[in-house]
Protein backbone atom coordinates (compact mmCIF):
# COMPACT_ATOMS: atom_id res chain seq x y z
CA UNK A 1 0.00 0.00 0.00
CA UNK A 2 0.97 3.62 -0.27
CA UNK A 3 3.96 4.30 1.91
CA UNK A 4 4.39 7.98 1.36
CA UNK A 5 2.07 10.07 3.46
CA UNK A 6 -0.30 11.80 1.13
CA UNK A 7 -0.68 15.52 1.56
CA UNK A 8 -3.50 16.14 3.98
CA UNK A 9 -6.56 16.92 1.95
CA UNK A 10 -10.09 16.62 3.07
CA UNK A 11 -11.95 13.77 1.45
CA UNK A 12 -14.65 15.31 -0.73
CA UNK A 13 -17.26 12.87 0.42
CA UNK A 14 -16.86 13.31 4.11
CA UNK A 15 -19.81 15.23 5.22
CA UNK A 16 -19.64 16.56 8.70
CA UNK A 17 -20.48 13.43 10.57
CA UNK A 18 -21.19 13.08 14.24
CA UNK A 19 -19.25 10.36 15.98
CA UNK A 20 -21.39 7.52 17.27
CA UNK A 21 -20.93 8.43 20.88
CA UNK A 22 -22.65 11.78 20.47
CA UNK A 23 -26.13 10.33 20.47
CA UNK A 24 -25.97 8.44 23.78
CA UNK A 25 -24.13 11.30 25.39
CA UNK A 26 -26.72 13.85 24.31
CA UNK A 27 -29.51 11.53 25.41
CA UNK A 28 -27.99 10.99 28.85
CA UNK A 29 -27.25 14.67 29.26
CA UNK A 30 -30.75 15.66 28.28
CA UNK A 31 -32.28 13.21 30.73
CA UNK A 32 -29.99 14.11 33.59
CA UNK A 33 -30.37 17.84 33.07
CA UNK A 34 -34.13 17.60 32.86
CA UNK A 35 -34.20 15.44 35.94
CA UNK A 36 -32.04 17.89 37.86
CA UNK A 37 -34.14 20.78 36.70
CA UNK A 38 -37.31 19.13 37.90
CA UNK A 39 -35.62 18.18 41.15
CA UNK A 40 -34.54 21.79 41.61
CA UNK A 41 -38.13 22.86 41.05
CA UNK A 42 -39.14 20.26 43.58
CA UNK A 43 -41.28 18.41 41.08
CA UNK A 44 -39.22 15.38 40.21
CA UNK A 45 -41.05 12.50 38.55
CA UNK A 46 -39.81 9.70 36.36
CA UNK A 47 -42.59 10.12 33.82
CA UNK A 48 -42.18 13.83 33.26
CA UNK A 49 -38.40 13.56 33.24
CA UNK A 50 -38.48 10.96 30.49
CA UNK A 51 -41.04 12.83 28.41
CA UNK A 52 -39.46 16.27 28.69
CA UNK A 53 -35.98 14.77 28.52
CA UNK A 54 -36.85 13.02 25.28
CA UNK A 55 -38.14 16.25 23.81
CA UNK A 56 -35.03 18.12 24.91
CA UNK A 57 -32.87 15.34 23.49
CA UNK A 58 -34.69 15.44 20.16
CA UNK A 59 -34.34 19.19 19.82
CA UNK A 60 -30.71 19.16 20.89
CA UNK A 61 -29.82 16.30 18.61
CA UNK A 62 -31.50 17.88 15.62
CA UNK A 63 -29.81 21.19 16.29
CA UNK A 64 -26.38 19.63 16.74
CA UNK A 65 -26.82 17.49 13.66
CA UNK A 66 -28.08 20.46 11.68
CA UNK A 67 -25.02 22.45 12.60
CA UNK A 68 -22.49 19.70 11.96
CA UNK A 69 -24.09 17.50 9.34
CA UNK A 70 -26.42 19.83 7.51
CA UNK A 71 -30.16 20.19 7.30
CA UNK A 72 -30.90 17.02 5.34
CA UNK A 73 -28.99 14.82 7.70
CA UNK A 74 -30.69 16.55 10.60
CA UNK A 75 -34.08 15.79 9.10
CA UNK A 76 -33.04 12.21 8.66
CA UNK A 77 -32.00 12.06 12.29
CA UNK A 78 -35.27 13.61 13.38
CA UNK A 79 -37.16 10.98 11.41
CA UNK A 80 -35.08 8.23 12.97
CA UNK A 81 -35.66 9.56 16.45
CA UNK A 82 -39.40 9.96 15.85
CA UNK A 83 -39.77 6.51 14.33
CA UNK A 84 -37.82 4.93 17.14
CA UNK A 85 -39.72 6.79 19.82
CA UNK A 86 -43.01 5.82 18.18
CA UNK A 87 -41.91 2.29 18.66
CA UNK A 88 -40.87 2.76 22.27
CA UNK A 89 -44.08 4.66 22.93
CA UNK A 90 -46.11 1.75 21.63
CA UNK A 91 -44.20 -0.64 23.82
CA UNK A 92 -45.26 1.23 26.95
CA UNK A 93 -48.94 0.27 26.93
CA UNK A 94 -48.04 -3.21 25.77
CA UNK A 95 -45.59 -3.75 28.58
CA UNK A 96 -47.99 -2.17 31.02
CA UNK A 97 -50.94 -4.31 29.95
CA UNK A 98 -48.90 -7.48 29.92
CA UNK A 99 -47.31 -6.68 33.25
CA UNK A 100 -50.68 -5.89 34.77
CA UNK A 101 -52.23 -9.06 33.43
CA UNK A 102 -49.32 -11.20 34.54
CA UNK A 103 -48.97 -9.76 38.00
CA UNK A 104 -52.68 -9.88 38.70
CA UNK A 105 -53.38 -13.06 36.80
CA UNK A 106 -50.64 -15.30 38.15
CA UNK A 107 -51.97 -15.68 41.74
CA UNK A 108 -54.89 -17.79 40.51
CA UNK A 109 -53.05 -19.42 37.64
CA UNK A 110 -53.29 -22.81 39.31
CA UNK A 111 -54.56 -26.29 38.68
CA UNK A 112 -57.94 -25.56 40.19
CA UNK A 113 -58.49 -22.78 37.69
CA UNK A 114 -58.12 -25.21 34.85
CA UNK A 115 -60.06 -28.09 36.36
CA UNK A 116 -63.02 -26.39 38.01
CA UNK A 117 -65.95 -24.52 36.65
CA UNK A 118 -67.79 -21.98 38.76
CA UNK A 119 -70.70 -24.28 39.38
CA UNK A 120 -71.82 -24.08 42.97
CA UNK A 121 -68.87 -21.98 43.94
CA UNK A 122 -69.18 -18.71 45.79
CA UNK A 123 -66.27 -16.55 46.78
CA UNK A 124 -62.75 -17.91 46.48
CA UNK A 125 -61.75 -20.94 44.44
CA UNK A 126 -63.34 -22.28 41.32
CA UNK A 127 -62.07 -22.06 37.83
CA UNK A 128 -62.82 -21.38 34.24
CA UNK A 129 -63.11 -24.77 32.57
CA UNK A 130 -66.60 -23.88 31.48
CA UNK A 131 -65.41 -20.59 30.00
CA UNK A 132 -62.37 -22.08 28.30
CA UNK A 133 -64.52 -24.80 26.79
CA UNK A 134 -67.00 -22.20 25.65
CA UNK A 135 -64.37 -19.98 24.12
CA UNK A 136 -62.89 -22.89 22.22
CA UNK A 137 -66.34 -23.90 21.00
CA UNK A 138 -67.55 -20.49 19.93
CA UNK A 139 -64.29 -19.39 18.35
CA UNK A 140 -63.83 -22.80 16.80
CA UNK A 141 -67.25 -22.79 15.19
CA UNK A 142 -66.83 -19.19 14.12
CA UNK A 143 -63.54 -20.12 12.49
CA UNK A 144 -65.08 -23.09 10.76
CA UNK A 145 -67.82 -20.83 9.38
CA UNK A 146 -65.70 -17.82 8.51
CA UNK A 147 -62.54 -19.27 7.10
CA UNK A 148 -64.05 -21.17 4.16
CA UNK A 149 -66.46 -18.37 3.34
CA UNK A 150 -63.79 -15.75 3.77
CA UNK A 151 -61.13 -17.50 1.77
CA UNK A 152 -63.52 -18.52 -0.97
CA UNK A 153 -64.77 -14.96 -1.21
CA UNK A 154 -61.19 -13.74 -1.39
CA UNK A 155 -60.57 -16.25 -4.15
CA UNK A 156 -63.59 -14.88 -5.92
CA UNK A 157 -62.26 -11.35 -5.62
CA UNK A 158 -58.78 -12.23 -6.77
CA UNK A 159 -59.39 -14.92 -9.34
CA UNK A 160 -62.87 -14.45 -10.69
CA UNK A 161 -64.30 -11.17 -9.60
CA UNK A 162 -64.77 -8.45 -12.14
CA UNK A 163 -67.12 -5.57 -12.40
CA UNK A 164 -69.95 -4.59 -10.13
CA UNK A 165 -70.28 -7.62 -7.93
CA UNK A 166 -66.59 -7.68 -7.10
CA UNK A 167 -66.54 -3.99 -6.38
CA UNK A 168 -69.63 -4.31 -4.25
CA UNK A 169 -68.10 -7.14 -2.27
CA UNK A 170 -64.83 -5.30 -1.73
CA UNK A 171 -66.66 -2.23 -0.58
CA UNK A 172 -69.12 -3.96 1.68
CA UNK A 173 -66.46 -6.12 3.22
CA UNK A 174 -64.84 -2.90 4.32
CA UNK A 175 -68.15 -1.71 5.66
CA UNK A 176 -68.58 -5.00 7.44
CA UNK A 177 -65.34 -4.50 9.34
CA UNK A 178 -67.13 -1.57 10.93
CA UNK A 179 -70.12 -3.47 12.27
CA UNK A 180 -70.03 -2.82 15.98
CA UNK A 181 -69.59 -6.05 17.84
CA UNK A 182 -72.67 -5.60 19.96
CA UNK A 183 -74.79 -5.14 16.85
CA UNK A 184 -73.43 -8.43 15.56
CA UNK A 185 -74.49 -9.98 18.84
CA UNK A 186 -77.98 -8.52 18.72
CA UNK A 187 -78.30 -9.70 15.15
CA UNK A 188 -77.27 -13.27 15.90
CA UNK A 189 -79.52 -13.37 18.93
CA UNK A 190 -82.50 -12.09 16.94
CA UNK A 191 -81.76 -14.60 14.18
CA UNK A 192 -81.76 -17.56 16.53
CA UNK A 193 -84.83 -16.39 18.36
CA UNK A 194 -86.70 -16.50 15.07
CA UNK A 195 -85.78 -20.13 14.53
CA UNK A 196 -85.53 -21.55 18.01
CA UNK A 197 -87.86 -19.46 20.08
CA UNK A 198 -87.28 -16.85 22.76
CA UNK A 199 -84.38 -17.03 25.14
CA UNK A 200 -82.24 -19.25 22.98
CA UNK A 201 -78.73 -18.38 23.85
CA UNK A 202 -76.30 -20.94 22.58
CA UNK A 203 -72.68 -21.23 21.62
CA UNK A 204 -73.67 -21.49 18.01
CA UNK A 205 -75.50 -18.17 18.16
CA UNK A 206 -72.39 -16.66 19.68
CA UNK A 207 -70.34 -18.22 16.92
CA UNK A 208 -72.58 -16.69 14.28
CA UNK A 209 -72.12 -13.30 15.89
CA UNK A 210 -68.36 -13.79 15.89
CA UNK A 211 -68.46 -14.91 12.28
CA UNK A 212 -70.07 -11.65 11.25
CA UNK A 213 -67.07 -9.92 12.79
CA UNK A 214 -64.52 -12.40 11.57
CA UNK A 215 -65.46 -12.87 7.93
CA UNK A 216 -64.44 -9.43 6.72
CA UNK A 217 -61.06 -9.71 8.39
CA UNK A 218 -60.44 -13.09 6.82
CA UNK A 219 -61.51 -11.80 3.42
CA UNK A 220 -59.32 -8.76 3.63
CA UNK A 221 -56.18 -10.51 4.72
CA UNK A 222 -56.71 -13.49 2.41
CA UNK A 223 -57.28 -11.16 -0.50
CA UNK A 224 -54.01 -9.38 0.18
CA UNK A 225 -52.17 -12.65 0.43
CA UNK A 226 -53.64 -14.13 -2.74
CA UNK A 227 -52.78 -11.02 -4.67
CA UNK A 228 -49.19 -11.44 -3.63
CA UNK A 229 -48.97 -14.68 -5.57
CA UNK A 230 -47.20 -13.82 -8.80
CA UNK A 231 -49.30 -14.05 -11.91
CA UNK A 232 -46.42 -15.87 -13.52
CA UNK A 233 -47.19 -18.88 -11.39
CA UNK A 234 -50.80 -18.92 -12.44
CA UNK A 235 -49.80 -18.59 -16.07
CA UNK A 236 -47.29 -21.37 -15.67
CA UNK A 237 -50.04 -23.64 -14.46
CA UNK A 238 -52.53 -22.60 -17.14
CA UNK A 239 -49.90 -23.18 -19.77
CA UNK A 240 -49.56 -26.73 -18.51
CA UNK A 241 -53.21 -27.27 -19.25
CA UNK A 242 -54.29 -27.11 -15.65
CA UNK A 243 -57.88 -25.97 -15.18
CA UNK A 244 -58.35 -22.77 -13.27
CA UNK A 245 -59.80 -24.29 -10.16
CA UNK A 246 -56.95 -26.74 -9.83
CA UNK A 247 -54.50 -23.93 -10.38
CA UNK A 248 -56.07 -22.08 -7.51
CA UNK A 249 -56.20 -25.08 -5.24
CA UNK A 250 -52.83 -26.58 -6.04
CA UNK A 251 -50.68 -23.59 -6.88
CA UNK A 252 -52.15 -20.35 -5.58
CA UNK A 253 -53.35 -21.55 -2.19
CA UNK A 254 -50.20 -23.52 -1.30
CA UNK A 255 -48.03 -20.60 -2.32
CA UNK A 256 -49.89 -18.24 -0.05
CA UNK A 257 -50.71 -20.63 2.75
CA UNK A 258 -48.34 -18.97 5.20
CA UNK A 259 -49.98 -15.60 4.75
CA UNK A 260 -53.43 -17.10 4.85
CA UNK A 261 -52.75 -18.76 8.17
CA UNK A 262 -51.37 -15.56 9.61
CA UNK A 263 -54.47 -13.72 8.44
CA UNK A 264 -56.77 -16.29 9.98
CA UNK A 265 -54.88 -16.05 13.24
CA UNK A 266 -55.25 -12.29 13.23
CA UNK A 267 -58.95 -12.72 12.71
CA UNK A 268 -59.21 -15.29 15.50
CA UNK A 269 -57.27 -13.03 17.82
CA UNK A 270 -59.61 -10.21 16.94
CA UNK A 271 -62.79 -12.07 17.86
CA UNK A 272 -61.68 -14.40 20.62
CA UNK A 273 -61.69 -11.49 23.05
CA UNK A 274 -65.13 -10.17 22.11
CA UNK A 275 -67.38 -9.72 25.09
CA UNK A 276 -70.49 -7.84 24.15
CA UNK A 277 -71.80 -10.10 21.36
CA UNK A 278 -71.23 -13.25 23.40
CA UNK A 279 -72.95 -11.74 26.39
CA UNK A 280 -75.97 -11.17 24.19
CA UNK A 281 -75.90 -14.29 22.05
CA UNK A 282 -74.12 -17.07 23.93
CA UNK A 283 -75.43 -16.20 27.35
CA UNK A 284 -74.15 -16.80 30.81
CA UNK A 285 -73.80 -19.83 32.99
CA UNK A 286 -71.61 -20.89 35.86
CA UNK A 287 -71.71 -24.52 34.81
CA UNK A 288 -69.90 -26.47 32.18
CA UNK A 289 -71.93 -26.93 29.05
CA UNK A 290 -70.33 -28.85 26.22
CA UNK A 291 -73.27 -28.76 23.92
CA UNK A 292 -72.94 -25.90 21.48
CA UNK A 293 -76.50 -26.13 20.22
CA UNK A 294 -78.32 -26.28 23.52
CA UNK A 295 -78.22 -24.01 26.50
CA UNK A 296 -76.10 -21.01 27.33
CA UNK A 297 -72.36 -21.35 27.26
CA UNK A 298 -69.81 -19.36 29.18
CA UNK A 299 -66.85 -17.86 27.38
CA UNK A 300 -63.64 -16.40 28.71
CA UNK A 301 -64.28 -12.75 27.89
CA UNK A 302 -67.73 -12.95 29.46
CA UNK A 303 -66.20 -14.75 32.38
CA UNK A 304 -63.67 -11.95 32.80
CA UNK A 305 -66.25 -9.23 32.44
CA UNK A 306 -68.80 -10.75 34.77
CA UNK A 307 -66.20 -11.66 37.34
CA UNK A 308 -65.24 -8.02 37.33
CA UNK A 309 -68.77 -6.66 37.23
CA UNK A 310 -70.42 -8.95 39.78
CA UNK A 311 -67.80 -9.08 42.47
CA UNK A 312 -69.21 -10.63 45.60
CA UNK A 313 -68.28 -9.98 49.21
CA UNK A 314 -64.82 -11.44 48.68
CA UNK A 315 -64.07 -9.03 45.86
CA UNK A 316 -60.42 -10.00 45.51
CA UNK A 317 -61.30 -13.60 44.63
CA UNK A 318 -63.47 -12.36 41.78
CA UNK A 319 -60.86 -9.92 40.53
CA UNK A 320 -58.17 -12.58 40.69
CA UNK A 321 -60.29 -14.87 38.59
CA UNK A 322 -60.98 -12.07 36.13
CA UNK A 323 -57.29 -11.39 35.59
CA UNK A 324 -56.40 -15.06 35.39
CA UNK A 325 -59.14 -15.43 32.80
CA UNK A 326 -57.62 -12.56 30.83
CA UNK A 327 -54.18 -14.10 31.11
CA UNK A 328 -55.54 -17.42 29.92
CA UNK A 329 -57.20 -15.75 26.97
CA UNK A 330 -53.96 -14.07 25.92
CA UNK A 331 -52.07 -17.32 26.36
CA UNK A 332 -54.57 -19.17 24.18
CA UNK A 333 -54.10 -16.62 21.44
CA UNK A 334 -50.33 -16.84 21.79
CA UNK A 335 -50.35 -20.60 21.56
CA UNK A 336 -52.62 -20.46 18.51
CA UNK A 337 -50.33 -17.89 16.97
CA UNK A 338 -47.21 -19.92 17.57
CA UNK A 339 -48.85 -23.02 16.16
CA UNK A 340 -49.96 -21.05 13.13
CA UNK A 341 -46.46 -19.74 12.60
CA UNK A 342 -45.04 -23.23 12.82
CA UNK A 343 -47.56 -24.53 10.33
CA UNK A 344 -46.99 -21.53 8.09
CA UNK A 345 -43.24 -21.96 8.03
CA UNK A 346 -43.71 -25.63 7.33
CA UNK A 347 -45.72 -24.80 4.21
CA UNK A 348 -43.99 -21.62 3.18
CA UNK A 349 -42.55 -21.52 -0.34
CA UNK A 350 -39.04 -22.84 -0.24
CA UNK A 351 -35.96 -21.05 -1.41
CA UNK A 352 -35.50 -17.36 -2.06
Amino acid at each position, binding site marked *: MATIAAPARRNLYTAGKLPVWVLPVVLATALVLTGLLFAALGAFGIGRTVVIGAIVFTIAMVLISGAVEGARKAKDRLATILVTSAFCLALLPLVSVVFETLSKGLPRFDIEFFTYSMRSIVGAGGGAVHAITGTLWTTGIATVISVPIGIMAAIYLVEYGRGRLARAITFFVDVMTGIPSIVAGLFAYALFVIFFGPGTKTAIAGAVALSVLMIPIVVRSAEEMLRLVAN*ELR*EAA*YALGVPKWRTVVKVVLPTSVGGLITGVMLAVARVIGETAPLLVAAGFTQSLNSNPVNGPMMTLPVFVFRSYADQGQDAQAYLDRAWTGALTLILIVMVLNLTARLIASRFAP*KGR
Partner: protein
Amino acid sequence: MSKRIEVHDLNVYYGKFKAVEGVSLTVEPRTVTAFIGPSGCGKSTFIRTLNRMHEVIPGAYVEGRVLLDGDNLYGPGVDPVRVRRTVGMVFQRPNPFPTMSIKENVLAGVRLNGQRLSATASADLVERSLRGANLWNEVKDRLNSPGSGLSGGQQQRLCIARAIAVQPEVILMDEPCSALDPISTIAIEDLIGELKEQYTVVIVTHNMQQAARVSDQTAFFNLAAQGKPGRLIEIGSTEKIFSNPDEKATEDYITGRFG
Protein backbone atom coordinates in the same frame (compact mmCIF):
# COMPACT_ATOMS: atom_id res chain seq x y z
CA MET B 1 -45.81 -35.59 -31.64
CA SER B 2 -45.79 -32.30 -33.44
CA LYS B 3 -48.38 -30.41 -35.37
CA ARG B 4 -48.83 -27.85 -38.09
CA ILE B 5 -50.16 -24.48 -37.05
CA GLU B 6 -52.16 -22.42 -39.47
CA VAL B 7 -53.34 -18.95 -38.55
CA HIS B 8 -55.98 -17.26 -40.65
CA ASP B 9 -56.52 -13.56 -40.47
CA LEU B 10 -56.23 -13.19 -36.76
CA ASN B 11 -57.07 -10.01 -34.86
CA VAL B 12 -56.39 -9.74 -31.14
CA TYR B 13 -58.08 -7.23 -28.89
CA TYR B 14 -57.55 -6.03 -25.36
CA GLY B 15 -61.02 -4.78 -24.68
CA LYS B 16 -61.52 -2.11 -27.30
CA PHE B 17 -57.84 -1.87 -28.18
CA LYS B 18 -56.84 -3.87 -31.22
CA ALA B 19 -53.33 -5.04 -30.44
CA VAL B 20 -52.68 -7.31 -33.41
CA GLU B 21 -54.30 -7.20 -36.79
CA GLY B 22 -54.73 -9.54 -39.70
CA VAL B 23 -52.05 -12.13 -39.06
CA SER B 24 -51.99 -15.18 -41.29
CA LEU B 25 -49.15 -17.64 -41.24
CA THR B 26 -48.28 -21.30 -41.25
CA VAL B 27 -45.82 -23.12 -39.05
CA GLU B 28 -44.68 -26.52 -40.18
CA PRO B 29 -44.25 -29.40 -37.73
CA ARG B 30 -40.74 -30.05 -36.42
CA THR B 31 -39.45 -26.63 -37.22
CA VAL B 32 -38.44 -23.63 -35.17
CA THR B 33 -40.15 -20.38 -36.01
CA ALA B 34 -38.84 -17.14 -34.55
CA PHE B 35 -40.95 -14.01 -34.06
CA ILE B 36 -38.98 -10.80 -34.08
CA GLY B 37 -39.98 -7.16 -34.00
CA PRO B 38 -39.77 -4.03 -31.90
CA SER B 39 -41.23 -3.87 -28.44
CA GLY B 40 -44.98 -3.50 -28.27
CA CYS B 41 -45.62 -4.85 -31.74
CA GLY B 42 -47.68 -7.68 -30.35
CA LYS B 43 -45.33 -10.66 -30.45
CA SER B 44 -46.23 -11.75 -26.96
CA THR B 45 -49.86 -11.03 -27.57
CA PHE B 46 -49.87 -13.09 -30.73
CA ILE B 47 -47.91 -16.07 -29.44
CA ARG B 48 -50.29 -16.35 -26.53
CA THR B 49 -53.22 -16.72 -28.88
CA LEU B 50 -51.65 -19.94 -30.14
CA ASN B 51 -52.64 -21.69 -26.93
CA ARG B 52 -55.36 -19.33 -25.82
CA MET B 53 -53.25 -18.03 -22.96
CA HIS B 54 -54.38 -14.52 -23.81
CA GLU B 55 -57.74 -15.46 -22.34
CA VAL B 56 -56.17 -15.27 -18.92
CA ILE B 57 -56.07 -11.50 -19.36
CA PRO B 58 -59.46 -9.99 -18.68
CA GLY B 59 -61.01 -8.44 -21.75
CA ALA B 60 -58.70 -10.06 -24.25
CA TYR B 61 -60.27 -11.86 -27.20
CA VAL B 62 -59.54 -12.83 -30.78
CA GLU B 63 -61.20 -12.82 -34.16
CA GLY B 64 -60.09 -15.26 -36.76
CA ARG B 65 -58.98 -18.85 -36.77
CA VAL B 66 -56.02 -20.81 -35.50
CA LEU B 67 -55.85 -24.35 -36.83
CA LEU B 68 -53.81 -27.08 -35.28
CA ASP B 69 -53.56 -29.83 -37.84
CA GLY B 70 -56.87 -28.55 -39.12
CA ASP B 71 -58.67 -28.23 -35.78
CA ASN B 72 -59.77 -24.72 -35.00
CA LEU B 73 -58.63 -23.76 -31.53
CA TYR B 74 -61.37 -21.20 -31.39
CA GLY B 75 -64.12 -23.44 -32.65
CA PRO B 76 -67.25 -23.70 -30.58
CA GLY B 77 -66.98 -26.12 -27.71
CA VAL B 78 -63.22 -26.14 -27.63
CA ASP B 79 -61.81 -26.40 -24.17
CA PRO B 80 -58.86 -24.04 -23.70
CA VAL B 81 -57.50 -26.26 -20.98
CA ARG B 82 -57.10 -29.10 -23.45
CA VAL B 83 -55.60 -26.77 -26.01
CA ARG B 84 -52.94 -25.80 -23.53
CA ARG B 85 -52.11 -29.36 -22.80
CA THR B 86 -51.39 -29.78 -26.49
CA VAL B 87 -49.60 -26.48 -26.90
CA GLY B 88 -47.13 -25.87 -24.08
CA MET B 89 -45.55 -22.58 -23.18
CA VAL B 90 -42.35 -21.28 -21.60
CA PHE B 91 -42.15 -17.72 -20.34
CA GLN B 92 -39.66 -14.91 -20.28
CA ARG B 93 -38.90 -15.15 -16.61
CA PRO B 94 -38.34 -18.62 -15.24
CA ASN B 95 -41.27 -19.44 -13.00
CA PRO B 96 -40.90 -22.74 -11.20
CA PHE B 97 -43.51 -23.34 -8.50
CA PRO B 98 -41.87 -22.18 -5.29
CA THR B 99 -43.68 -24.64 -3.08
CA MET B 100 -42.50 -27.63 -5.06
CA SER B 101 -39.28 -29.55 -5.33
CA ILE B 102 -37.52 -30.01 -8.67
CA LYS B 103 -39.21 -33.33 -9.15
CA GLU B 104 -42.63 -32.04 -8.23
CA ASN B 105 -42.13 -29.17 -10.61
CA VAL B 106 -41.49 -31.53 -13.47
CA LEU B 107 -44.50 -33.60 -12.53
CA ALA B 108 -46.66 -30.58 -11.92
CA GLY B 109 -48.48 -30.72 -15.22
CA VAL B 110 -49.39 -34.33 -14.67
CA ARG B 111 -50.06 -34.17 -10.95
CA LEU B 112 -52.04 -30.96 -11.01
CA ASN B 113 -54.41 -32.59 -13.38
CA GLY B 114 -55.09 -35.23 -10.86
CA GLN B 115 -53.43 -38.09 -12.69
CA ARG B 116 -51.86 -40.71 -10.48
CA LEU B 117 -48.54 -42.11 -11.62
CA SER B 118 -46.78 -45.08 -10.14
CA ALA B 119 -43.47 -44.32 -8.49
CA THR B 120 -41.47 -45.82 -11.32
CA ALA B 121 -43.54 -44.19 -14.01
CA SER B 122 -43.09 -40.81 -12.42
CA ALA B 123 -39.37 -41.33 -11.80
CA ASP B 124 -39.17 -42.25 -15.43
CA LEU B 125 -41.05 -39.24 -16.61
CA VAL B 126 -38.94 -36.96 -14.44
CA GLU B 127 -35.74 -38.35 -15.85
CA ARG B 128 -36.97 -38.28 -19.41
CA SER B 129 -38.18 -34.69 -19.17
CA LEU B 130 -35.10 -33.43 -17.39
CA ARG B 131 -32.87 -35.14 -19.90
CA GLY B 132 -34.98 -33.61 -22.62
CA ALA B 133 -34.31 -30.21 -21.09
CA ASN B 134 -30.59 -30.93 -20.69
CA LEU B 135 -30.86 -30.57 -16.95
CA TRP B 136 -30.69 -34.11 -15.72
CA ASN B 137 -27.00 -34.23 -14.98
CA GLU B 138 -27.03 -31.02 -13.03
CA VAL B 139 -29.92 -31.86 -10.73
CA LYS B 140 -30.14 -35.61 -10.55
CA ASP B 141 -28.72 -35.60 -7.04
CA ARG B 142 -31.14 -33.08 -5.64
CA LEU B 143 -34.46 -33.83 -7.19
CA ASN B 144 -36.16 -33.19 -3.89
CA SER B 145 -34.70 -29.78 -3.21
CA PRO B 146 -36.76 -26.72 -4.07
CA GLY B 147 -36.81 -25.62 -7.69
CA SER B 148 -36.31 -22.00 -6.75
CA GLY B 149 -32.83 -22.88 -5.47
CA LEU B 150 -31.50 -23.31 -8.98
CA SER B 151 -29.73 -20.65 -11.00
CA GLY B 152 -31.72 -18.64 -13.52
CA GLY B 153 -30.67 -20.71 -16.51
CA GLN B 154 -31.33 -23.93 -14.68
CA GLN B 155 -34.73 -22.68 -13.60
CA GLN B 156 -35.58 -21.88 -17.20
CA ARG B 157 -34.60 -25.36 -18.29
CA LEU B 158 -36.63 -26.73 -15.42
CA CYS B 159 -39.59 -24.85 -16.82
CA ILE B 160 -38.93 -26.39 -20.21
CA ALA B 161 -38.75 -29.81 -18.61
CA ARG B 162 -42.03 -29.10 -16.91
CA ALA B 163 -43.56 -28.08 -20.23
CA ILE B 164 -42.41 -31.17 -22.11
CA ALA B 165 -43.41 -33.53 -19.32
CA VAL B 166 -47.04 -33.21 -20.35
CA GLN B 167 -46.03 -34.26 -23.86
CA PRO B 168 -47.34 -31.38 -25.85
CA GLU B 169 -47.17 -31.17 -29.62
CA VAL B 170 -46.14 -27.57 -29.82
CA ILE B 171 -43.91 -25.54 -27.55
CA LEU B 172 -44.20 -21.77 -27.42
CA MET B 173 -41.40 -19.73 -25.88
CA ASP B 174 -41.73 -16.03 -25.16
CA GLU B 175 -38.21 -14.61 -24.90
CA PRO B 176 -36.97 -17.60 -22.97
CA CYS B 177 -33.40 -16.32 -22.73
CA SER B 178 -33.81 -12.64 -22.10
CA ALA B 179 -33.29 -13.03 -18.36
CA LEU B 180 -30.33 -15.33 -18.79
CA ASP B 181 -26.59 -15.00 -19.19
CA PRO B 182 -24.84 -16.14 -22.38
CA ILE B 183 -23.79 -19.52 -21.05
CA SER B 184 -27.32 -20.39 -20.05
CA THR B 185 -28.55 -18.90 -23.28
CA ILE B 186 -26.35 -21.20 -25.28
CA ALA B 187 -27.61 -24.15 -23.28
CA ILE B 188 -31.19 -23.21 -24.07
CA GLU B 189 -30.43 -22.60 -27.73
CA ASP B 190 -28.85 -26.03 -27.98
CA LEU B 191 -31.91 -27.43 -26.34
CA ILE B 192 -34.21 -25.76 -28.84
CA GLY B 193 -32.21 -27.40 -31.59
CA GLU B 194 -32.94 -30.76 -29.99
CA LEU B 195 -36.56 -30.04 -29.22
CA LYS B 196 -37.43 -29.40 -32.81
CA GLU B 197 -36.76 -33.01 -33.59
CA GLN B 198 -39.93 -33.82 -31.73
CA TYR B 199 -41.94 -30.68 -31.36
CA THR B 200 -43.12 -27.71 -33.30
CA VAL B 201 -41.34 -24.79 -31.66
CA VAL B 202 -42.28 -21.11 -31.79
CA ILE B 203 -40.02 -18.61 -30.10
CA VAL B 204 -40.20 -14.88 -29.54
CA THR B 205 -36.82 -13.21 -29.28
CA HIS B 206 -35.27 -9.79 -29.24
CA ASN B 207 -31.93 -11.17 -30.11
CA MET B 208 -31.49 -11.21 -33.86
CA GLN B 209 -28.45 -13.46 -33.61
CA GLN B 210 -30.48 -15.88 -31.62
CA ALA B 211 -33.23 -15.89 -34.19
CA ALA B 212 -30.66 -16.47 -36.88
CA ARG B 213 -29.00 -19.26 -34.92
CA VAL B 214 -32.00 -21.30 -33.84
CA SER B 215 -34.83 -20.79 -36.26
CA ASP B 216 -35.78 -22.28 -39.60
CA GLN B 217 -38.37 -19.64 -40.28
CA THR B 218 -38.59 -16.04 -39.08
CA ALA B 219 -41.60 -13.78 -38.82
CA PHE B 220 -41.14 -10.06 -38.52
CA PHE B 221 -43.82 -8.07 -36.74
CA ASN B 222 -44.08 -4.34 -36.67
CA LEU B 223 -46.53 -1.64 -35.88
CA ALA B 224 -47.28 1.30 -38.09
CA ALA B 225 -47.29 3.78 -35.25
CA GLN B 226 -47.67 3.97 -31.50
CA GLY B 227 -51.25 3.02 -30.60
CA LYS B 228 -51.84 1.27 -33.93
CA PRO B 229 -52.19 -2.51 -33.98
CA GLY B 230 -49.16 -4.66 -34.70
CA ARG B 231 -49.03 -6.57 -37.98
CA LEU B 232 -47.08 -9.37 -39.49
CA ILE B 233 -44.83 -7.68 -42.03
CA GLU B 234 -43.01 -10.62 -43.45
CA ILE B 235 -42.47 -14.29 -42.85
CA GLY B 236 -40.03 -16.54 -44.60
CA SER B 237 -37.11 -18.86 -44.19
CA THR B 238 -34.66 -17.44 -41.72
CA GLU B 239 -31.95 -17.41 -44.30
CA LYS B 240 -33.99 -15.31 -46.65
CA ILE B 241 -35.25 -12.89 -44.00
CA PHE B 242 -31.75 -12.24 -42.74
CA SER B 243 -30.04 -12.04 -46.09
CA ASN B 244 -32.60 -10.79 -48.52
CA PRO B 245 -35.93 -9.75 -47.06
CA ASP B 246 -38.73 -8.62 -49.31
CA GLU B 247 -39.67 -5.68 -47.19
CA LYS B 248 -37.60 -2.61 -46.56
CA ALA B 249 -38.82 -2.39 -42.94
CA THR B 250 -37.53 -5.88 -42.24
CA GLU B 251 -34.14 -5.09 -43.60
CA ASP B 252 -33.98 -1.85 -41.64
CA TYR B 253 -34.88 -3.62 -38.47
CA ILE B 254 -32.45 -6.44 -38.92
CA THR B 255 -29.57 -4.24 -39.76
CA GLY B 256 -30.36 -1.94 -36.89
CA ARG B 257 -31.13 0.92 -39.24
CA PHE B 258 -34.62 1.15 -37.98
CA GLY B 259 -36.94 4.11 -38.05
